[in-house]
């Protein structure tokens, strides 16, 4: 096992800059998720870590060793690909044993190591099958098995769950997390799905446009997003972000509504953020017109309008209001987020 340090790494494909100086520190045994929208450079960063892309400038160190010029096979990493990249002409056993076969390991060692990984993943019965004969979830497990057999310092996952259906994805998510808790191997996991990131990570690195927007534990990102991008990206449904300015008795929204501010609010906030689950139904709340009601069972999502400002709310209570009716709502004062309008930075509140 090893720590990973990414220091001021840049990547350019010809004239196109993809990564603009990325810094990430990954502690030994940590589960780090790189998350961001398509094209943010997260997969490129992972591939640079694996050695599949070269590094334009900056440094990547695995353990004490800078690996910029170390070929992939000597980096002591194992990667799970989005399409699994299983060798279709080899059985599950041969797929998992391939790295040992290349290293000319004796047959008994191969059987022992593959057997160990197969046991962890419950693949014992499938070892003689070909990838074609497996379901998506089983292929996913074989891909992980191939990585486990390598006994690597670092596991790399490149959107490993995106080819699975929703139910299997949740199940595999739990399995990967459990696997990490068992093996305690440093893991870097790339996804565009913020729920995957929130549920699995010890540390999330939110990337956007080749920059790191914020890095930290999931709940810190949720509670104290450093900027507008992270605020909008983390959390589902997304945070309400209302434009406006500080005014008399509260935050003056462009749509005309006035939102209450916490006591500690200071500075010139241009954007008022409140998560849907932090809006409450209160008798003394602000009147809002219901636009849409979406009951999901455990909670009820309501889109309601105050003045011209639409707000998404998620209530624990069952809401019986119909579109057009008025409900009274109130943001939870200490859970309000305030951002600068120009830079989008969070204002200390």
């Amino acid at each position, binding site marked *: 096992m090893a720590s990973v340090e990414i220091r001021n790494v840049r990547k350019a494909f010809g004239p196109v800059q993809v990564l603009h100086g990325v810094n990430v520190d990954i502690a030994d045994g940590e589960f780090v998720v790189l998350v961001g929208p398509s094209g943010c450079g997260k997969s490129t960063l992972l591939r640079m870590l694996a050695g*599949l892309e070269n590094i334009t400038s900056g440094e990547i160190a695995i353990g004490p060793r800078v690996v910029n010029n170390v070929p992939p096979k000597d980096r002591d990493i194992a*990667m799970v690909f*989005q399409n699994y*990249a299983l*060798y279709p*002409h080899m059985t599950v056993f041969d797929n998992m044993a391939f790295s040992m076969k290349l290293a000319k390991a004796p047959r008994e060692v191969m059987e022992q190591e593959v057997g160990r990984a197969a046991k962890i993943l419950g693949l014992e019965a499938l070892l003689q099958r070909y990838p074609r*004969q497996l379901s998506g979830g089983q292929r996913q497990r074989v891909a992980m098995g191939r990585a486990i057999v390598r006994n690597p310092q670092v596991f790399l996952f490149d959107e490993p769950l995106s080819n699975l259906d929703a139910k299997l994805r949740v199940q595999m998510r739990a399995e990967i997390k459990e696997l990490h808790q068992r093996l305690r191997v440093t893991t870097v996991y790339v996804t565009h799905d913020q729920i995957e990131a929130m549920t699995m990570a010890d540390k999330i690195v939110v990337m956007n446009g080749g920059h790191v927007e914020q890095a930290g534990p999931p709940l810190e990102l949720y509670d104290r997003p450093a900027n507008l991008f992270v605020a909008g990206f983390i959390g589902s449904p997304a945070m309400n972000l209302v434009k406006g300015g500080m005014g008399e008795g509260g935050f003056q929204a462009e749509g005309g509504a006035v939102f209450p501010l916490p006591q500690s609010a200071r500075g010139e906030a241009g954007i008022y953020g409140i998560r849907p689950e932090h809006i409450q139904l209160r008798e003394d709340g602000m009147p809002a017109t219901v636009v849409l009601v979406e009951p999901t069972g455990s909670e009820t999502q309501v889109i309601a309008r105050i003045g011209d400002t639409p707000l998404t709310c998620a209530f624990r209570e069952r809401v019986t209001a119909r579109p057009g009716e008025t409900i009274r709502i109130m943001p939870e004062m200490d859970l309000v987020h305030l951002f600068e309008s120009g830079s989008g930075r969070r204002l200390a509140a």
Partner: protein
Amino acid sequence: MSATTALAWNRPNQQPNWLVRLFDWKPFLAFACLLPAAGLLLVFLTYPLGLGIWLAFTDTTIGRSGYWVGLENFQYLLEDPLWWNAVFYSVFYTGIATIGKFALGLWLALLLNNHLPFKSLLRAIILLPWIVPTVLSAIAFWWIYDPQFSIISFLLVEKLGLLNNNIDFLGSAWPARFSLIAANIWRGIPFVAISLLAGLQTISPSLYEAALLDGSTAWQRFRFITFPMLLPILAIVMTFSIIFTFTDFQLVYAITRGGPVNSTHLLATLAFQRGIPGGQLGEGAAIAVSMIPFLVFATLFSYFGLARRKWQQGEGND
């Protein structure tokens, strides 16, 4: 009144005419669609093949319809040193040319599979030898192999001074045999290279990346990934290539006409020479028919030996 009154209009129940109904009738449609293809096959494939096989069992000559002679033609061939010679050269020609074509074609395909500048232009140029009519390239090779004006001899003797005399490519048996094989390889490479290139492009790049992380060398990636995944396509292309090479006629006939002293006769050229200029239609047909077992064997070998792989099939064979 602002409400508009609905206009009464019922969709008329149209009866299609008899022609439309006829073509909607499945058995007729199947028959009508199959007719052109079946007709062409019957007239241009089945009839000549049947006639050829029939002739092989008769003593027909040009100008005289023959009588059924049973296996007499074949018995005669078994004792004919020229036929044995043609069998030997056909097998030799096919074997060496196939090895050459596949070695060079695979190499070329691997090169073209890399990122190269002007990739599509290069690929188009590669196809040229295959597009040029065989007789045209045969005439070019005829010049290349000319005892006096050969460009190879010119380069080696006049320009580089490596040899003292011109090479006599086509004047004696073994040089002529190898010269023809070289010409055939030159012509056959594009087909192999382009087909294998298509095969290479179906192999997912992430497999190579996975193998790279698994610690493979370039040779191991070829040996364990490229080659086995290319094998099915290789088998198909090889089957075709063997059939085309074994039945080759144009190249040999245009360059050597089977000479010198019948040393470069393939079965096809021998069959033609016996049958048409020689007039012995029955015997020529017998020689042609004698190719069939070789072709069937070659096809079955590559089909069963190489094409069917368990991993390509779907479920249910564990």
